[in-house]
Structure formats: C-alpha cells, structure tokens
C-alpha cells in the first residue's frame, strides 16, 4: 500500500516537462518553418530534413558513447529543436553536407562535448552556424530568391534532389543577395541609402517573408506570432526579446536620425535577417541565457547592441549569431552578479532594517 522507496515532495506538480517545453517551441516555429519550406521549395525541404535527421543521429550516437540512456534524452526534443533551428538559419538551397556538418558541430561540439543537455555554454545552433559561416563562406552566403513550391520557376523534384545532393549550376544562375547583404555592399561602396534601398525588398515584403534570406528567417510576422505564443505559454518571458529588439531599434533610430543616408533605419533592422528569430527563439535559449530578470534584460540589450555594431561596422552583413554567442559567454558572469533580491534582505544581502517602527523593545 505504501511505497517502500521514499518519494520526494511536493506530491503535486505543474504539468511541465522538458518535452513539453521543447514541443511548444517547435510548435511556435512551425508556421514560419512551413512558410519557409513553401517559399524555397523542394531543395529547402531536403536540406531541412537532412539537417534534422543528422542532428538526431549525432545525438543518439553521442548519448551511446557517453553511456547515457538514449531514449529519454532523444525523446525530450532538444536535439530536434537544435537541428530545426540550425536548418532555419541556413541558406535554403545549400548542399546537404552543410546540414550534416552543421548538425555535427551543433550536437557534438556545441552540446554533447560540454556534457549534454543543460550543460552547454553556447547556443549549439549558433556554434554550428558561426563555424559554418567561417569555414564555408561561399556556400553559406549564396542565397536564393523565393520560388514558391508549384510556381513556374520552382525546380522540380528531381532537379531539387540535384540541387541539394548533387552538383548543380542552377544556384549561381538565380542567386540573389539578402537585404542586409545588399545594403552592406552598396553602403560600403558609398552609395546613399535611398538609392541602395531600391534593390531590396520593401518592408512589407520583409514582414511577410517574400525576400531572399535564410530558410526560416524571412517571415518576420510569422516568427513574431510564434514568439508571442511562447510568451503567452510562459516558456519564455518578454524580457530578452524586448531588450534585444529595443536596443537594436534604439541604436538604429539614433544613427539613422544623425545620418539618414548612411545608416539603415530601425524597421529594416528589425524585420530583416535573423533579428526576430534571434530575439524570440535564439537569444531566449533557456540553457544559455541568464536566469534572473535583470540578467535577462542586460543580456538582451547586449545582444541588440552587438547585432547593431556587427551589422553596421563589422565585416559581416548579419551579426545575430555572433552577438548571441558573445553574450552567451557573459551569461555565467551576469548570473553571478545579477541575482534576484532575497526576501527580507537588501541588494547587498544584509537583513532589512526599519527605522520607523516595530522592532524589539
């Protein structure tokens, strides 16, 4: 009747689990992902599938090597999410091995080497993305204009197989620069913003995602909806996304007001590249972000600042991955210094004192 083994209290529990957390994140990513897959057609679907499958295989292999039980850890959904997020940041028509190498970097180097789930210092998907970008700059920067499934220009199933898994020259023929890429190049040549903007997607195109870019980064609107869903479900809080987008928008506004011809405006910054995806899905990665509210605000603001700095003054057109990783490195420090105030103590940890009334007489 009574269990022999002492059971740990409390004897009631919130209906939460790691699997549920990861599942909700995946659900939030689903609309933007499906739209991205539709937009970039079969090659994107192949790449997406390959990356996720590779991530799961590497996870299972690493768990077996580490002597851990494979099933519970594989089923918690974390490897699936890592592979998924990585795929979303890849150029949609990239060759298959980009996905596989990326999955290896993310799961094995970025996560399991540190000790598996919960132990990694850096966001695994971003480790992979940054390593890929530095190692294979050509493949990682060849973007393609959207050719929705079943549209006239879309490659057929077999052609798509060739694009992802074989040799194909089709990519070069139709490749197109991303918004940030184009602006960077043009502004770098001294062209005024007004002129440079002519060659890129409009703000509405960016919002809906009808512009060239990474597989899942294009539709700011769908990503924003997914992010709000996560906040509603209390998987993430508003602090990191708001601090990140806020600091990015603030800096962009200030510089745009100072010199409208050389600095890109805040809306373009917010809607292009990985800003929205990063703010809601990458910077908020539970494992690698600070745990206190004040820490999260600082972390988010730091990411926003670095994103702006990298996009504006550094060599790369996009900086979300770098910015997140740099701030990931600061997380232990932030957690050490910015803790919540303990009940009954002041910020320094001394017991509160009241001068006015009560107290021992």
């Amino acid at each position, binding site marked *: *009747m*009574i*269990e022999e083994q*002492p*059971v*740990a*209290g*409390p*004897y*009631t*529990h*919130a209906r*939460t*689990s*790691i699997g*549920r*957390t990861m599942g909700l994140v995946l659900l939030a990513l689903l609309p933007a992902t499906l739209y991205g897959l539709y937009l970039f057609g079969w090659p994107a679907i192949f790449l997406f599938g390959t990356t996720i499958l590779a991530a799961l295989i590497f996870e299972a292999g690493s768990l077996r090597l580490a002597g851990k039980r494979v099933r*519970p850890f594989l089923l*918690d959904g*974390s490897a699936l999410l890592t592979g998924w997020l990585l795929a979303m940041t890849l150029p949609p028509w990239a060759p298959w091995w980009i996905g596989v190498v990326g999955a290896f970097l993310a799961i094995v180097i970025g996560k399991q080497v540190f000790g*598996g*789930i*919960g*132990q990694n210092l850096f966001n695994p998907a971003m480790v992979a993305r940054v390593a890929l970008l530095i190692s294979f700059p050509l493949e990682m920067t060849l973007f393609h204009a959207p050719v929705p499934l079943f549209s006239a220009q879309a490659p057929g199933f077999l052609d798509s197989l060739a694009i992802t898994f074989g040799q194909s020259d089709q990519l070069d023929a139709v490749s197109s620069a991303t918004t940030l890429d184009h602006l960077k190049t043009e502004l770098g040549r001294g062209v005024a913003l007004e002129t440079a903007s002519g060659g890129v997607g409009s703000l509405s195109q960016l919002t809906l995602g009808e512009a060239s870019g990474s597989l899942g980064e294009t539709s700011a609107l769908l990503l924003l909806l997914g992010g709000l869903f996560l906040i509603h479900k209390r998987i993430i*809080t508003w602090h990191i996304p708001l601090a990140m987008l806020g600091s990015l928008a603030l800096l962009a506004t200030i510089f745009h007001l100072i010199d409208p011809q050389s600095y890109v405006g805040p809306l373009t910054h917010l809607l292009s590249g990985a800003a929205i995806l990063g703010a809601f899905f990458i910077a908020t990665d*539970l*494992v*690698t*972000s600070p*745990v*206190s509210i004040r820490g999260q605000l600082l972390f988010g603001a730091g990411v926003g600042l670095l994103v702006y700095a990298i996009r504006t003054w550094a060599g790369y057109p996009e900086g979300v991955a770098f910015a997140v990783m740099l701030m990931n490195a600061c997380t232990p420090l932030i*957690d050490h210094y910015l*803790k*919540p*105030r*303990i*009940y*009954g*103590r002041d910020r320094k*940890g001394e*017991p*509160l*004192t*009241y001068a006015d*009334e*009560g*107290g*021992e*007489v």
Partner: protein
Amino acid sequence: MGAENLIKLFKIRGGVHPDDRKQLSAGQAIEDLPLPPLLHIPLQQHIGAPAEPLVRRGELVKKGQRLARSQGAISAPVHAPTSGRIMGVGGYPAHHPSGLSVRTITLKPDGRDEWTDQLDPVYAPFSLAAEEIAQRVADAGIVGMGGATFPSAVKLNLRKRYALHTLVINGAECEPYLTCDDRLMREKPAKILDGVRLMARALGVDRILVAIENNKPQAQAAMGDAAKPYDEVDIVGLPTRYPMGSEKHLVQTLIGKETPARGLTADIGVVVHNVATAMAVHDALYLGRPLISRVMTVTGGAIRQPRNLHVPLGTPLSHLIDFCGGFKEEPAILISGGPMMGQPLPSTQVPAVKGSNALLALTAGESENSEEMPCIRCACCVQACPCGLVPLEMAANIRAGGLDNSVRLGLLDCIACGSCSYACPSHIPLVNYFNFAKGELAARQRSQHKQGETKRLAEARSERMEAIKRAKRKAMLKRKKEMEAKKRVQEETKTASESRVKAMPDTGVEA
C-alpha cells in the same frame, strides 16, 4: 468574487498556482469522529521539549485531565482526549516520515467520555489580564495548529519584547486539498472571532486582520458577518496563490513590509496566528477545555468519501480512513498535511496529533512522479521562488558538496515551500536538496558544537590539573621553605648557644 477589501494589498514575488482540489471535501460539514478502541497520545506534539508524564499504567483518567506537564520555556502539556484507563507509557511510532518510536501515552477509552471536574472556565474572559490569558493558553496545551506547532503562549508573550500593532489571523489555507480551516470559519465564525479578540488582548494590539484566500467566499462571508460588531477586525480577501499562507509572505501582502531575514514578523510589529488556534483559545478560555481534539480534512482521490472530521488527538489514522469508507483505489502515497509541504506517512497506525491538519491518500495519477532529468536552466524555479532565491544554483552547489556556497546563495532564507520543485519541468526535487542541506548544516553545527565543547572541557581539565600541580608545587615549596627556615632557626639557636657556651669563659674571664 472575494471580499471587498478595505485595505490595500501588496504584491509578493513568485509563487505557483497548483490545482486546489478543495471541492473534494469543501462541501462536507465537520463531523465528530467516534472514539477509537485505543488512543496513542505522543508526549511531543509541539516544537520544543517533550512533556513530562504525570500518569501511570492502570490509572483512571477523566476527559481533559492533564496527562503530562510541559517542561522548559518552550513546551506544552498534553491532556486526555476522553475518559478511560492508561494502558501504558512507552514507545509508539511517531507521526513523522521516519516512523521512529517516540514516548507515547496509550489510553483505553471507557466509553463514558466524562469531563474532569477540574475545568476552570472564565465567565468574562475579556476582563482577564494579558498575562492571565497567555497563562491559560499555555496550560491548555495550545500550539500553532496550522502545522508549525509552536507553543502559542510563547507567541502571545511576544508583547513583552516587541512593539506590536497588528494581529493577523491566517485563514489563507493555501495548500491544495485542505478544507479544515475553511469549514471551521464557515461553521464557527463567532467562536473563532472571540478567540481572535482574546489573543489580540493578550498581545496588546488593537488591529486585527483576518486574511482568507478568495477561493473561500463562504468562509469570507461568514467571518464578515460575524465581524460586523467589531470595528477593530477587518476580513481581507487574498489572491489565491501558493504560498500565500507563509507567515512572512502573508504579512507582506497585508502591510507591505518584508520581515527582515532571520527575524520574526514581530520585528515589524505583527504576530500571526492560525484560525484553528483561535478556536482552541476560545475553548480554553470560555469553556476551560484544553486542546484535546482538532479538525482534520481526510481527502484525496483514493478516499471513498472525503470528509472534514473533528478528531480526538491520538486517534490512529486508520480509524479516520475507515470512517471515510476506506480506499476506493490503492493510494500511491499517504500524506500528512497538504501535497506541497506535507510529509509522507510511514503507516496508518500513527496517531493524529496537534499539528495534523489533513490526511491525504493520493492516487498514482494525482501524485504524478516523473523521472528526474538534467536542469535546462529554464529559470522556472527562479520565477516561482517567493524568497528571491536561485534554486537551480543552490541545488547544483549542494549536489557538488558545496554546502557553504549554498548558504552564501541564501539556503537559510529558503522557507521550503516547494514552489521550485512544483514548477521544475525537469522534475528535479529541488526543495529536497535544500531540506537535506539544512539537515547537514544542522548536523555539522551540532558536531562542531560538540567538538568545541569537548575541546573546552579538555582545556579546562588540563588547566585544572595544571592549577592543582602548581598549587601542590607551591605548597611543597612553601613547606620546604618553612622547613628550611625552621632548620635555620634551629641551627642559629644551636650555633648561638654553642658560641655562647664557647664565649662564656672568655666573657667570664673578661668579666
């Protein structure tokens, strides 16, 4: 919903919203539980020193007669829940997860349930002095009946050391499943208020706040009606959130001030007592009756007919379960108290004691116990902690043996409410780490204290030995000196006389 609050409430941080499951027993009026064949009355049903037995095997006792007297400043006496014969004073499994044996008086009821003629009711208790009220509360063996079981009279005497202004009556009952305080407030609001006002008199405060969570509208209404004649009493509706009933958080919600760390609510002028305690104070003063029974909720998915029972202290819990129709399915776990902070019961043979507010028999589905997974640093525990701690970091330190580090992170500020464990998606038993660490710390302090004492005693002993040696040596030296002095004197007198003898002829010649 809820009472119209006349006072402004303040926000507390953290907390969780567990499914309260109070509907299982909230509709059941309090029923008297028939006497069991045997009562097992432990001598320690309170925090502090155990009571000292006054009765012997074979003795006949009356209901309400004192069976054991309190010993020490923090202790409480124990009284007979009914009339009958003492079967023995010996060991019996405690109402504690360990099930270890504790000193217990076993009483066989004679079925007559006769009150002792020693009862001393007061006809006008409000004319009593504060000291007198506290003394009677102490004599009645009343302890904090919310579960803390701290002797209530000690708390009533806080007026001597603190400048108090408010008495808060804790009717939050924030633990899921529990309905005993809810029923008491619905059924006996006038008596509770009399007890409350007596306690306020003992404390010397003129402001009383009765705080009740908004999930108990009937209790709020009943208490509100009963409180109408008294201007000093306010009934306050509290937001439904666990752990609203935590003393320090309740006070913060009501008066907006945090109790200083390691301090008492009395530091900010407030004393908190429980609803059932107020009821016991009423009985002690108006009827002269000691604390010999209490209201308990018997509930949970495995109980056939959940009920609120008026239970004689010392009744084996199996008797309660039988009265509620037994189990309708095999319970996965039996708990004393609520599911958040309650303790697992080692057996159904253990007796009901002063601090037991509930007996829960939970099914496997209710007490879902998932496998522990690694921490994913999701900060759910940080958000849930009402004390502003970082549970994940404390637990990581304790796991790695860093006890001192966990203390630096605030281990001793943890109130063990279990909100962190409740919220953790990885099902890490966080609060158990903290309870373990607190136990370790206490054990370490004890052994350090023991070491210190041993060292002190050993040093004192060698010091004493040294002193004895020194005294002996000194005495010896003294004696030696005396001997020498004596010798010298003797010698001197000898030589003197000799010389005199020698000198005599000369002098005689000269003379």
